[in-house]
């Protein structure tokens, strides 16, 4: 439980940090940031960004600071139900996060301030939209001063988006190994040669990588007499970044699951029945948070999110997650966050002290897990036993809605078509016995016209 400790991800910026007290998240603002914080509030920038849904709202509170000797003020930001990371986002999510960062920078310049960092980790999906969660990312703008966060923006947003768009959408996973964004020399090497003929990519990636190498470690004699990046120049750079990011696209074609809606194995009556059972179970448990594992394009996740239940819809397929995200944006859905996740290799602890970016399991435990048409993939395609699956799910949540897909089902047969059937224990009886070690089976129903069975289980 998060009790009275400093948030492990919040340590790089000396302007302040996040800390937990009695399960509530606060942000301490240090004395060194006093002037910039005052300007943020007094200039009207804070209110304007909050009104436009670009910055997380906060309240100034009288809570005792975590480090009183350094403190100027304590604020309490609105709580984000689930923290996600850029390597879990689909192409469209990263693109929207990039565009909102540039919009915030333009907005800030209008109010005489500028973003002093542009980390993708400062953006979260809240009420269906990307939003900046770091209220200390602003500093006073001084005409002539370059944009300090330009390199970070290119590494965190432009490089991965260009690689995903021009090479392969799975290259977003490079963000997992490079937590301060993809190094530009690496991006430059991986991008196809033709990107040299795209002026924004030529400059912001390829030339950027060359100048970085050329001037790396050069000792510079500082001279304060001249300033060369004026406001118009900075707006020009921002406009160029905005234009290239808008141009970059990726469309899910027939990736593994993205055509699910037209290929699933149910008749209409079975599908309707399955939805009805899931809905009934959700009503019975009334969870506040749901994680849907193997959510595909989110058909069943929406049974929860449409009831105003904060729902995270995980899927391994970037195409399915992209379609799910587009659908949630089109429907202005506020309670659904689609994310990419490989269940067999969930996001690990990363960064400094292995505590900077947290593993999936450490980022909360939902009241209820949905695991529909998933178990046969884990057991048969990935050789994970019922016991391992049940233990993992019991670690995550108290309630479970799970579907058992028998061996004779065409989808299970498809998984077995290219391999030897070594799964002698794969049966409904064995499934119930093993899951019964960790969960109490509260109810179960066979889906109409199928041999599949849905269970509602409660952790013992």
């Amino acid at each position: 439980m998060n009790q009275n400790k400093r948030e492990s991800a919040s340590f790089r910026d000396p302007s302040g940090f996040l800390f937990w007290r009695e399960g509530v998240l606060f942000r301490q603002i240090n004395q060194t940031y006093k002037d910039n914080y005052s300007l943020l509030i007094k200039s009207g920038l804070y209110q304007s960004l909050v009104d436009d849904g670009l910055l997380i709202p906060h309240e100034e509170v009288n809570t005792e600071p975590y480090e009183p000797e350094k403190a100027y003020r304590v604020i309490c930001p609105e709580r984000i139900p689930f923290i996600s990371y850029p390597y879990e986002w689909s192409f469209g999510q990263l693109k929207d996060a990039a565009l909102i960062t540039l919009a915030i920078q333009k907005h800030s310049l209008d109010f005489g301030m500028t973003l002093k960092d542009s980390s993708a980790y400062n953006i979260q999906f809240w009420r269906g939209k990307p939003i900046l969660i770091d209220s200390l990312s602003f500093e006073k703008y001084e005409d002539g001063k370059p944009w300090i966060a330009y390199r970070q923006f290119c590494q965190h947003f432009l490089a991965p988006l260009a690689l995903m768009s021009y090479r392969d959408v799975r290259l977003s996973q490079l963000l997992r190994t490079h937590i301060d964004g993809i190094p530009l020399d690496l991006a430059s090497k991986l991008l196809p040669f033709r990107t040299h003929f795209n002026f924004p990519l030529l400059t912001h990636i390829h030339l950027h990588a060359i100048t970085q190498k050329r001037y790396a470690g050069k000792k510079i004699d500082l001279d304060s007499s001249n300033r060369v990046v004026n406001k118009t120049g900075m707006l020009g750079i921002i406009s160029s970044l905005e234009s290239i990011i808008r141009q970059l696209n990726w469309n899910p074609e027939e990736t593994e699951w993205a055509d699910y809606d037209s290929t699933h194995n149910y008749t209409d009556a079975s599908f309707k029945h399955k939805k009805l059972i899931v809905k009934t179970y959700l009503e019975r448990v009334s969870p506040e948070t749901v994680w849907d594992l193997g959510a595909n394009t989110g058909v069943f996740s929406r049974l929860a999110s449409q009831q105003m239940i904060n729902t995270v819809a995980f899927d391994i397929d970037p195409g399915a997650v992209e379609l799910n995200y587009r659908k949630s944006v089109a429907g202005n859905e506020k309670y659904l966050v689609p994310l990419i996740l490989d269940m067999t290799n969930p996001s690990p602890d990363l960064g400094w002290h292995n505590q900077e970016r947290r593993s999936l399991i450490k980022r909360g435990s939902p009241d209820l897990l949905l695991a529909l048409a998933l178990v046969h993939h884990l057991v048969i395609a990935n050789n994970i036993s019922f016991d391992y699956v049940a233990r993992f799910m019991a670690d995550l949540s108290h309630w479970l809605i799970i579907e058992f897909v028998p061996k004779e089902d065409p989808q299970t047969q498809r998984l077995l078509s290219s391999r030897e059937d070594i799964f002698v224990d794969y049966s409904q009886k064995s499934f119930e016995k093993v899951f019964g070690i960790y969960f109490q089976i509260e109810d179960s129903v066979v889906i109409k016209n199928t041999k599949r069975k849905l269970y509602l289980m409660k952790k013992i």
Partner: protein
Amino acid sequence: MNGMLFVKVIFSPLKGNNAYLDPGSGSLILQSILAALLGGLFILRSNWKKIKDGVVNLFTGQREEGEEEVDEPK
């Protein structure tokens, strides 16, 4: 502008304030070049309609859209 002078110039304003990121020397140099190039383009683009209308007016003598006739005292 020679290389070293350029470096001196663009590094000057980065001390103080709350900057904690290392902006990178190469990134700053590139930014200053791009600012000159893209800043000009930005002005052109932001004022493109005005420029276009101005040129059109110059050749056709037409008034800009929305501009009203003003009655002159006779």
